[in-house]
């Protein structure tokens, strides 16, 4: 979702639950602002549209179930056939859990085979306990945003550090998602000269040449051998984690002409942290780039 000025406003999902019924998720922090934006669009921009909106956030307790055994676990919980053929990647629908009304979405923010399952809020506690008990043979654990943060950076999924109020879809490598064949809020102004510069910032992945070296978010990209001054600044690291899959620190960052610098070596400099580290610029899709795990 873009702002009128072409800058990315928020990201989320929209699922079609019926002939004329959609459920939209937003980031937690932007739930209110997105709802307000939708109301503004409905009431002021397109009052002729036949659209009704209401928040349904608290009506449902929704859990992400992620990992190679996600489907096997959920098959013990839901009443319907959720095989890959019956419920493929990106499917969404109303289901039942022991006869209780529920919703299932096959979406993944972790990069793993994943679903989000929702039941009426009063049953949320019981559902989580049931999933942990019924799925015991798969050794399930409750995971939080720290673990999710690692997985989303490994996959190159943008979040708060990248959705910083100054970045476009093009900056994030998502330029093709903004269709130029139709109008949409932000499409026209996202095409401004300064925002479509081929040498502008692009999302890249970063890992240190020495796997034992540390990265720090906020560090700046510099070419090798240049002075650490603003004139030589190539961009910055937006998010950093230690990746157990890759065995080293990894990061996402905005690098000038970054899409043409994949495979190059640069420096990451952070004068405040006393850091000057040689890094390799890599694709932001650092783990399972073909998406085989999430489509499994």
């Amino acid at each position, binding site marked *: 979702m873009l702002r009128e000025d072409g800058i990315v406003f928020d990201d989320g999902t929209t699922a079609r639950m019926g002939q004329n019924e959609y459920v939209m998720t937003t980031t937690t922090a932007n739930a209110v602002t997105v709802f307000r934006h939708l109301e503004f669009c409905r009431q002021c921009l397109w009052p002729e549209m036949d659209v009704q909106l*209401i928040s349904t956030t608290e009506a449902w307790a929704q859990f992400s179930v992620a990992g190679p055994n996600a489907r096997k676990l959920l098959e013990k919980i839901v009443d319907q056939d959720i095989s890959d053929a019956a419920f493929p990647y990106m499917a969404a629908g109303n289901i039942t859990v022991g006869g209780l009304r529920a919703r299932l979405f096959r979406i993944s923010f972790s990069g793993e085979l994943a679903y989000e399952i929702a*039941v009426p809020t009063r*049953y949320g506690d019981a559902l989580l306990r*049931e999933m942990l008990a019924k799925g015991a043979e798969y050794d399930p654990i409750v995971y939080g945003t720290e673990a999710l943060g690692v997985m989303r950076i490994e996959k190159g999924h943008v979040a708060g550090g990248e959705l910083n109020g100054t970045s476009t879809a093009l900056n994030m490598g998502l330029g093709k998602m903004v269709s130029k064949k139709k109008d949409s809020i932000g499409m026209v102004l996202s095409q401004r000269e300064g925002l479509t510069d081929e040498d502008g910032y692009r999302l890249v992945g970063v890992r240190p040449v020495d796997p034992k070296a540390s990265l720090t978010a906020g560090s700046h990209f510099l070419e090798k051998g240049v002075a650490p001054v603003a004139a030589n600044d190539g961009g910055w690291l937006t998010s950093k984690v230690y990746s157990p899959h890759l065995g080293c620190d990894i990061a996402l960052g905005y690098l000038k002409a970054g899409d043409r610098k994949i495979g190059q070596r640069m420096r990451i400099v952070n004068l405040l942290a006393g850091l000057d580290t040689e890094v390799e610029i890599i694709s932001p899709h650092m783990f399972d780039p073909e998406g085989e795990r999430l489509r499994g």
Partner: protein
Amino acid sequence: MVSLQSLTALGKREATIVTHGPMTITERTDVALASLAARKGRMADLDKAAKAAGVPLPGPATHRTGTPYSAFWTAPEMWFVEAPYATHELIADLLKTAFGESASITEQTDAWVAFDLAAADLTPVLERLCNVDFYFVPAGYATRTVMEHLGVYLIKHDLGAARIYGPRSSAESLLHAIKTAAHSLW
């Protein structure tokens, strides 16, 4: 077969009842709730369907009681519809069948915590909780207002009976606010 046990908004198996001085606060877990909004230009069809289904459509700032459906106005051509949970757990599905393409209907039951307040006169406690002139507004008055930091709906059944709908995830905070206001009085 999976069988899930529900919890109340306050994390308990049974609805909470609190008595403080002359006032009783009763958590209502037995009310099903759905939003009802007219599709564009379909108000006449909605009105007809409402009459057939026995769903009242009160005017602005008003709640109307009925059996099994009660309703209160929330916005132009939009209402919240209440019904007994025991018989109308699938209230959204039931209303969709009744209203067809004339309305957009959304499940709201578990989005809210409902507290019924009862005392001889609730004016002193409600005038401490919100900016509604509870004494002077008529019975059947319903409005959106703010208690502490929470957006709520307040319905006046009569001077000694009111219902407050607050955001479910803030149930403890809302109950605390009501109890604190009562404590300052009694």
